[in-house]
């Protein structure tokens, strides 16, 4: 049983990403989209938490929402994978459950 966790708000707006990473189970997947993509950047105050989480969960970021904010792929924390909407749909299919951290 695996779960896809979606985070759509910035970690600097509310603590949904931090809560999600604290509670996500081993080998679960996390998708950052909309303002959630800010959590995928190197050098921020949450970057160490995100890096550590990559030991146990897979983290994905929606490419279109990165691009909309002028954020380039080379600013991403190593190990975070970029997906498009097709990939978003596939993640919801591959995982048994989808949990939105609102």
């Amino acid at each position, binding site marked *: 049983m695996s779960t896809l966790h*979606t985070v*759509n*708000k910035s970690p600097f707006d509310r603590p949904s990403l931090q809560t999600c990473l604290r509670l996500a189970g081993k080998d679960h997947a996390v998708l950052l*989209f*909309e*303002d959630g993509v800010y959590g995928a950047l190197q050098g921020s105050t949450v970057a160490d938490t995100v890096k550590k989480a990559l030991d146990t969960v897979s983290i994905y970021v929606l490419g*279109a*929402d990165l691009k909309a904010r002028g954020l380039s792929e080379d600013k991403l924390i190593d190990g975070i994978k970029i997906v*498009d*909407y*097709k990939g*978003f*749909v*596939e993640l*919801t*299919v591959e995982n048994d*459950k*989808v949990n*939105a951290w*609102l």
Partner: protein
Amino acid sequence: MKFGIQVNEGPYTHEASVSALNFVKAALDAGHEIFRVFFYHDGVNNGTRLTTPPQDDINIVQSWSELAEKHNIDLVVCVAAAQRRGIVDEGEQERNGKDANNIAPGFRISGLGQLIEAGIQCDRLVVFGD
């Protein structure tokens, strides 16, 4: 696979409505079924045909209506959230003695049971918004 979608933000709140639209289109492209889209909280503002965005803006309400017609998608607006925000169909207009209605084509007003049913019937329920 059968998908249920829940939208909790209005078309001009943040991005949830556009994200949900893009997700629905991608899911349909991949051959999946969209069982229902349930609009809850401020999400009910996706369902008014009176919205008139500038011509060079994406018309989100119209996009939902067109998608619903093309793919026969059930767009359901939560009745309690709709009443509070002035989203009205003919039945609600009559029941509440209002002078007009504004529900957009392809949308219908119903209750939370429709969300519960989507949760039971669908393989996945994906939530967008706040």
